[in-house]
């Protein structure tokens, strides 16, 4: 994991220490922002939108996806807007041909190797960058076991196919499903499970290069791992690679319909912490529970009870005597 560049934003706990102001130019607009602001943050104040994938307000930036790159004048290479801090008199271009080229390639490289069908906003993004992932060749069929790769060795490429991360879905417990065919390796789940939130460290990045993957120790099934099923990794996963089993099953049955879902905030009934629970209700059934990212108590996190422990509400079988 890379070390932090920008400090971890603790939502709801604003940093009130006075900051020096830094003036810079972004896409021709001059502006002043407090020292310690990221280029992404500075862009936000100008309403310039920068696409991101591995960035999340509640996690330390790992700056690995490189989708947010921008051009800083005088620099040899592009800079990740999500983590690079502003510097005095910086001149930034967020939509230069160089920037657009790298973003387009990042999107194409991902789309040609990963199933992005459940990544929010991806269809529009691929379109706006004129991506043609098919130009790298037909996607290779799923590998039987990507967990068996050894570092520093790979089979010679098959000229008929473009390599992919396609592999069987991992369904090894009742609560959530891991479909790493959809994983872009954004590290968010690892951070959420580890030092940034949960401190359980049930999963980590294993292997290296194209064979790098999210894994438990020895790739054991989740029930044999340290996982406590808080689902905080699901909450941060941008691609749907990690998905609650209910949602996974409804999608498989073709009946997942977010547009018809009613979303209600309530307080988790279990303990005195009082986490805000957001219930997603479809056809009268709770189909998912989340917590708002910007909630100062949860930062989007819950425990196993809040995340998954609401089935009793809709358990319609007769109560036991």
């Amino acid at each position, binding site marked *: *994991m*890379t*070390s932090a*560049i920008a400090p971890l934003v603790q939502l709801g706990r604003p940093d009130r220490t006075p900051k020096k102001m830094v003036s810079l130019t972004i896409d021709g607009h001059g502006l002043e922002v407090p020292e310690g602001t990221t280029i992404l943050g500075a862009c936000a104040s100008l309403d310039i939108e920068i696409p991101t994938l591995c960035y999340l307000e509640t996690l330390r930036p790992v*700056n*690995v*996806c*490189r*989708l947010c*790159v921008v051009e800083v004048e005088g620099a040899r*290479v*592009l800079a990740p807007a999500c*983590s690079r*801090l502003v510097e005095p008199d910086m001149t930034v271009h967020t939509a230069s041909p160089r920037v657009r*080229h*790298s973003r387009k*390639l*990042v999107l194409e*490289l*991902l789309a*040609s*190797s990963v199933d992005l069908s459940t990544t929010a906003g991806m269809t529009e993004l691929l379109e706006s960058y004129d991506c043609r992932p098919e*130009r*790298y*060749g037909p996607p290779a069929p799923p590998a039987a076991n990507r967990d*068996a*790769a*050894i*570092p*520093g*060795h*790979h*089979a*010679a*490429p098959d*000229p*008929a196919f*473009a*390599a992919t991360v396609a592999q069987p879905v991992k369904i090894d417990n009742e609560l959530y499903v891991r479909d790493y065919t959809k994983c872009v*390796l954004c590290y968010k789940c690892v951070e959420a499970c*580890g030092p940034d939130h949960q*401190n359980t*460290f*049930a*999963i*980590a*990045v*294993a*292997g*290296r*290069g*194209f*064979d*790098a993957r999210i*894994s*438990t*120790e*020895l790739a054991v099934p989740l029930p044999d*791992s*340290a996982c406590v099923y808080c689902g905080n990794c699901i909450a941060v996963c941008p691609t749907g690679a990690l998905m609650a089993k209910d949602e996974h099953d409804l999608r498989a049955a073709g009946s997942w319909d977010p547009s018809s879902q009613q979303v209600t905030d309530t307080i988790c009934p279990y303990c005195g912490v009082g986490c805000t629970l957001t219930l997603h209700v479809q056809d009268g059934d709770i189909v998912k529970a989340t917590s708002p990212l910007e909630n100062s108590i949860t930062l989007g996190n819950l425990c196993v009870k809040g995340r998954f422990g609401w089935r009793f509400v809709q358990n319609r079988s007769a109560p036991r005597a």
Partner: protein
Amino acid sequence: MDLKLLDAEPTLEEREAVDAAIGAPTSAWDGGERGTHRDAHTALGGASVRNRRHELVPALQSLQARVGWISEGGLGYVCERLGVPPADAWGVATFYALLATTPRPRRVLHVCSDIACARKAHGVELALEASVGPPISGAPSGDSIILGDDEAAWMHSPCLGMCDMAPAALLTVAGETPVERLCGNITPDRASGLLARRRVRSTSADILYVEQRLATTTPYATVPDSSASAPIPQLGDPSLVLLKRVGVVDPTSLESYRAAGGFEALQRALEMGAEAVVAEVSASKLVGRGGAAFPTGRKWEAVRTQPAQPHYLVCNADESEPGTFKDRLLMTHDPFAIVESMTIASFAAGCSRAYLYVRAEYPLAYERIANAIARCRDAGVFPSGFDIELRRGAGAYICGEETALFESIEGKRGEPRSKPPFPVNSGLFGKPTVVNNVETLANVIPILLMGGTEYAKIGTAGSTGTRLFCLSGAVRKPGVYEVPCGTSLRSLLELAEVREMSALLLGGAAGNFLRPDEIDVELSMEGARAANATLGSGVVLAFDEQTDLHHVVRRIAGFFRDESCGQCVPCRVGTVRQEESLHRLAHGRPIGGVAGELALLEEVGVAMRDASICGLGQTAYAAVESAIKRLRLYEGMA
């Protein structure tokens, strides 16, 4: 932190191996016996355990060396001892190529299949296929594989830093006294013999060069072949500066080094004071020899003036750039000079502790440096409070990248950090850190002895001093050469008696191909830049007419794919797409015709260069690009 540990128990052998690396447990809190009075009344853990994280890789290496792979029980014991979550440790263990996380025979021959060796190793590979079977290339199939102690296997290896003695192989034998032997000039018969534990008698046509660790029962033995009888081709040349002690002093003897003028520079440095030492180095205009060519004096000054404490010095001896073997030569034949240079640099930048990180494939260099450090420590050469710690890589080119190297020393996956912050501000363990290449440091001694301004008179105005170049391939006298910066590539090639050649690779896999008509380039930074090339780590690899350059280009692409850490998308996927494209070209199945394929390579290459986190991804297209644009390798292809 409350760890969920693995269920499997370590074997006695595994427990011993781990304890040998990190010490025996002191209580039940760190994996020892339960039930002492103290255990029941004290809670140990927290920071005292977390601070031991940096011992993770040495512990795993010890398991590997003892048992030949890292089993569930072994991994579990390491995690318990160091308080590392098993998933986290698994992530580290699966990152390094020389750590096996699935059962593997104790005796493994790693046969170099990289640029300089590929063609010469072909016979060796065929012989091994016939005698031992196909190479290991993945996890063994089947759930429980029981391996006999006598079983052996072989696998392909990236460049072993022995290109001047191609083909090369590294033998590792796990056991109570592990054996590590780096062999040059291997033959099919010799390779099979190494694996079968068969004694093969040397004939004049079958002599190999061996570098082995002293620690093993058999004493270190060098069996030089005819071309390697002198460690360097320029032996005896009075103009040598960096290589002048190579082949002259006894590399194991402090007295021999001292008699050759050793420690005079350190003495002078201590008298001058830190600030003055930095001033001399700045005046010398020395720049880094590790690839990035950053001014050394500036780096030292930046660390020297940092208020945060402690400061660290790291000597980067990971030397894994294909075609590079100069640092191995320096460490093997003049180890005391490296230790002295590190001491001077540490003194100048105010570092109380220094690390030397040497790639695992250099057993003898490791041994010699370890010996030199121990002798210096015993003889009181180090200023008080200062010490040097030796760390070994575990099979990862990326760990030569300075921030990946820090991560590796800290016990993590070798994933480069985002810069800024730069190492001089926040490096090893988050502290101000000087990181220098072995050759860079070696220059410090002559700089202090002759004075910075005098040193700056060597070479050109823009590139001072001498440089080491690693000549291999189509040359009659391969080896490490030292020439003043600004020497022409042509005269260097003449020194090494170049044969007829079709192309050459300058600067390594991250460098560029040059045509035979381009060899008038001046070997200085400005000369290389003017020729749109780079000196990189000093690689000069010449290819003869028989070399299939397409194969070489594909191998370079495969190398980057294998060695990418996998963090960032442009490099992780881009290196794959680059290699695929080259393979489609080779198979005559280009997408969109050859022109379409070349355009695709360019698009991917530009994104890798512009958007990757580190130098690996940023240079992964360099050699391929030069093959396309300079060698015009794909012109006229259907």
